[in-house]
C-alpha cells in the first residue's frame, strides 16, 4: 500500500524504525511518498495513495468533511521548538511563552526564517504569529519566507544566523551544523499532533482500504506505542504516543 507522509515525519527518522516492523508483523509493504502536507492531501483526494499521515488539523478535518477520507485518527504528537543563534540577540531564551518569544523576535527585528510553504509547520507558525499579535503585513525585511522543506529551511537559517520555528525531530536530526541553538520550547501550544487518514474507498474504488485499516490498527497498537516512545535521538524522546483505542 502507498501512504503519503509529510517531510517532517520522514525527516525524523521514525519511519525507518516503523516500516521494517510493519513489514514483519503485518507482512505489508508500506510505500512512503514523502511530500508536503498540501501535496499529501492532494494525493489523497486524487486517490493516488491509500492513506495519509499529516499534521495540520484544520486541513485534515476539511479532508474528511469533503468525503475524501473515511475518518481521522490521532496517533502521536511531538513539539515545535524555537531555534536561533546561540548569542540570542532577541533574548528568546527568557521568554515566558511562545507568543512572547515571537514578539521578542519581531521587536528586535532579528532575522527569522519561515518555511513559507503552507506545510503543517508553516501553518502552525502563522497561527503562533497571530497569537503573538504580529500581523502578517507587519513582517519586515527580517522575515524570510523560504518556501522549502524543514531541513533546507534549517540550513537556510543556519546560513543566515536567523531564528526559525522547527519541529523537534527535524532539529535533532539536523545535528546543528553552524551555531544555532534550541532557545525556547515547552509551551503546550507548540504541540504538534499527527493524524492518520485512510482514503475513502467510496470515492476511489481501487484504494486498498482493507490494508489501510490494518495499518491503522497496528499504528494504534501497544506494539507501535513501544516503538514510537522508544525512539530517541541523542537520548531525547521525540514523539508521544496518544492514540486512543477506538
Amino acid at each position: 500500500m502507498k501512504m503519503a507522509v509529510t517531510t517532517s515525519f520522514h525527516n525524523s527518522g521514525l519511519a525507518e524504525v516503523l516500516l521494517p516492523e510493519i513489514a514483519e508483523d503485518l507482512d505489508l509493504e508500506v510505500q512512503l511518498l514523502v511530500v508536503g502536507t498540501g501535496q499529501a492531501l492532494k494525493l489523497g483526494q486524487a486517490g493516488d495513495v491509500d492513506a495519509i499521515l499529516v499534521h495540520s488539523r484544520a486541513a485534515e478535518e476539511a479532508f474528511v468533511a469533503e468525503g475524501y477520507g473515511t475518518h481521522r485518527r490521532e496517533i502521536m504528537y511531538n513539539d515545535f521548538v524555537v531555534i536561533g543563534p546561540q548569542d540570542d540577540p532577541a533574548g528568546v531564551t527568557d521568554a515566558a511563552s511562545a507568543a512572547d518569544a515571537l514578539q521578542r523576535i519581531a521587536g528586535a527585528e532579528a532575522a527569522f526564517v519561515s518555511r513559507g510553504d503552507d506545510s503543517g509547520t508553516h501553518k502552525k507558525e502563522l497561527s503562533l504569529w497571530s497569537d503573538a499579535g504580529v500581523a502578517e503585513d507587519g513582517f519586515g525585511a527580517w522575515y524570510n519566507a523560504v518556501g522549502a522543506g524543514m531541513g533546507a529551511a534549517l540550513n537556510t537559517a543556519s546560513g543566515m544566523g536567523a531564528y526559525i520555528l522547527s519541529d523537534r525531530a527535524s532539529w535533532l536530526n539536523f545535528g546543528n551544523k553552524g551555531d544555532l541553538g534550541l532557545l525556547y520550547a515547552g509551551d503546550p501550544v507548540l504541540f504538534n499532533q499527527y493524524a492518520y487518514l485512510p482514503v475513502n474507498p467510496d470515492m476511489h474504488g481501487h484504494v486498498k482500504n482493507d490494508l489501510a485499516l490494518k495499518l491503522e490498527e497496528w499504528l494504534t497498537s501497544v506494539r507501535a506505542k513501544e516503538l514510537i516512545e522508544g525512539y530517541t535521538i541523542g537520548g531525547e524522546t521525540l514523539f508521544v504516543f496518544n492514540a486512543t483505542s477506538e
Partner: protein
Amino acid sequence: MVDLWSGLSQAFWLVVTLDAELLEIALRSLRVTLSALVVACLIALPLAGLLAVRRFRLRRAVIAMLNALMGLPPVVVGLVVYVFLSRSGPLGVLGLLFTPTAMIIAQVVIIVPLIASIAHQSLRELWQEYHDLLISMNVTQGQKIRTLLWDARRALLTAALAGFGRAIGEVGAIMIVGGNIDHATRVLTTAIALETGKGDFGLALALGFVLIGLAITVNIAIHWLSRTEREGNW
C-alpha cells in the same frame, strides 16, 4: 567545506564497500535513464531528420518550438504527466503512477526536444552538403533521413549524450511522478533531494559524486566505443 570532504569520503566508502542500497538506486537510475534515452532517440532522431530534409510550411515554427521546449521546466512536465497518470486522470486505469514507467515517460518528454534540437543542428549541416546529391539520386524521404542519420552518427552522439546527461541529473519531474518510494522508485537524484531536505548535505554530496562519476563513466565508455570503430576523420 566540511560537507564537501565528508561527502567525498562518504562517496569513496560507499563505492568501495559496494553499498547494497547505493547499488540498487544507482542501477535503477541507469535503467530508467537508459530506457528513456532509447525511447527518446527513437522519437527525436527521425524527427530531426524530417525537419532537416523536408520543407513544410510550419517548419521554422516547429524548430523554434523545439528550441523553446528544450526549456520545459521539469516540474511542469512532472505535473502534467502526473495529471494524466493520476487515478483521477484519463490514464489512471493503467496504474502507472509512482512506477519507474512513469519516470521514463516524464524523462522522455523532457529530453526529446533537447535531442531533436541538437541533432537537427548537425543534420542540417550535413544536409546542406548532401542536398544536391540526394535530390539528384531521386531518393525517398525515408532514405534521405536514414542516410543523414547514418553518416552523421558521430555528431548525433553528442545529442544523445546531452539527453542522457539531462535525464540522469533530472529530479523535479521524476520526484512528482515517481514519488521517490524506497525500493521502488528511488533513484540517485531523488535520494539526493531527500538527503538535502533532511539537511544531511554530506550524504547528499556523496550521492551526487557517485552520480557524476556514473555520468562520466558512461560518457567515456561511449566515446571509447565510438572511437574503436573510427576510420576516417569524420
